[in-house]
């Protein structure tokens, strides 16, 4: 099935338009958000160019993901409305399993960055922090846009969503987790078990 994934680079909101937006009621500054993404991008480059074995690289990428992403809020969002009826212990177990799943799944995607580079372009304010826009230049592909959403609402500066050509991780994973729950008749414990081998 020919799946149309057109990759186009777009100009993103300029610094001027970002300045016009009301500044968010958080202490996170634009430069701190930008620095976080710079750091993530640098560390990804170091890992993928380290010359380690593929499984070691995947393990390192998982660690990066856990260190720089607010995995708890991501898990909570992905669980959606079903999360409201779950007990605190169930939520914790889900969050833990989700962390490994998401890190494996998206760590694998970073593998495509081998031999490529990511440039940080612009930043703009969003409700809970900042959106940092980057362009990925990967081997043999047209450049495409990757946006990181960064917030300090967890207590430290972390990213909580990634948009790749408009496709965002949170919404996509809420769809997927919703399907996993449907498949298990809404049994969150069964989904937690499934997540341990998924991704």
């Amino acid at each position, binding site marked *: *099935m*020919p*799946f*149309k*994934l*057109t990759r*186009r680079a*777009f*100009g*993103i*909101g300029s610094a001027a338009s970002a300045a016009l937006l009301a500044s968010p009621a958080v202490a996170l500054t634009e430069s701190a958000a930008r620095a976080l993404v710079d750091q993530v991008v640098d560390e990804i480059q170091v890992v993928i160019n380290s010359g380690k074995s593929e499984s070691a690289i995947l393990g390192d990428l998982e660690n990066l993901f856990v260190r720089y992403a607010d995995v708890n*809020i*991501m898990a*909570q*969002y992905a669980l959606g409305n079903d999360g409201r009826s779950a007990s605190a212990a169930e939520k914790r177990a889900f969050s833990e399993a989700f962390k490994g799943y998401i890190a494996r*799944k998206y760590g*694998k*995607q970073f593998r*495509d960055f081998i031999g490529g580079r990511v440039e940080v372009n612009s930043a703009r304010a*969003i*409700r*809970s922090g900042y*959106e940092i826009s980057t362009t990925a230049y990967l081997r*043999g*592909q*047209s450049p495409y*846009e990757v*946006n990181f*959403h960064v*917030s300090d*609402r967890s207590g430290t500066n972390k990213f*909580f*969503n990634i*948009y790749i*050509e*408009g*496709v*965002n991780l*949170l*919404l*996509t994973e809420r*769809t*997927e987790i*919703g*399907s*996993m729950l*449907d*498949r298990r008749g809404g049994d969150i414990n069964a989904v937690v078990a*499934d997540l341990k081998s*998924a991704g």
Partner: protein
Amino acid sequence: MPLISSLQSSAKIAQALVAAAVLTACSTYQDPATRTAGINDPYEAENRQVHAFNKGLDRNLVRPVSKGYAAVVPPEIRDTVNNFSTNLSMPGVALNSLLQGDLRGAGLASTRFVMNTTIGLAGFVDAATELNIPQHDTDFGETLAVWGVGEGAYVELPVIGPSTQRDAVGFVTDVLTNPLTVVTLNTSPEQYIPPTAMAGAVLNDRDRLSGTIDSILYESADSYALSRSIYLQNRRFELEGGDASDEVDPFLDPYDN
């Protein structure tokens, strides 16, 4: 004059389709309940049947053939086929840009077509990119969106894959009005060139994006729901000029739930 008459008949079909699209967009205005998730899918049962067919087609034919194609044909040649196929689409891109009032896009597509067809050796070499002329891509689905036609319902098309009513009309119109497709309606050996190049490009893309596509189709809990979500997110992003992450959807701030 078969070319002229086929052009005329294509134009008529296109007119009929536009009319159909406008009507469809009016008649399928969705009720708020189905819009909450941003997805309008009243034909889900039928779509799922088509999805099962498409998945079988991919599993048994497209995926294995793309693997074979990538194993046998070196990447440089495969990229050349992609260049050639992309170049063939440029007259249509120029036309759609004009219809959208996008003179810059029309200029880019025309320039790329002329340059790549001449110094790019009939389109096999992407000379325009070497000379830093930006790429440009659009289609009649986008033209309809610019004209204010609504997205309509989500549909999964046989062989083609995820689409919307608006994009399905756009796709058919693009195929019928593409000058190079119209030429292929004549019976000459050249008629096989554009579809063959396109098939090669599709196989190459299937192989290049293999990890992503396999994870959507074969490693997800519900490949239909996942491909629908990803298609709509990506397509809306393309049509909105890259502002999909503009938080219109309040759910997308997970801290404010």
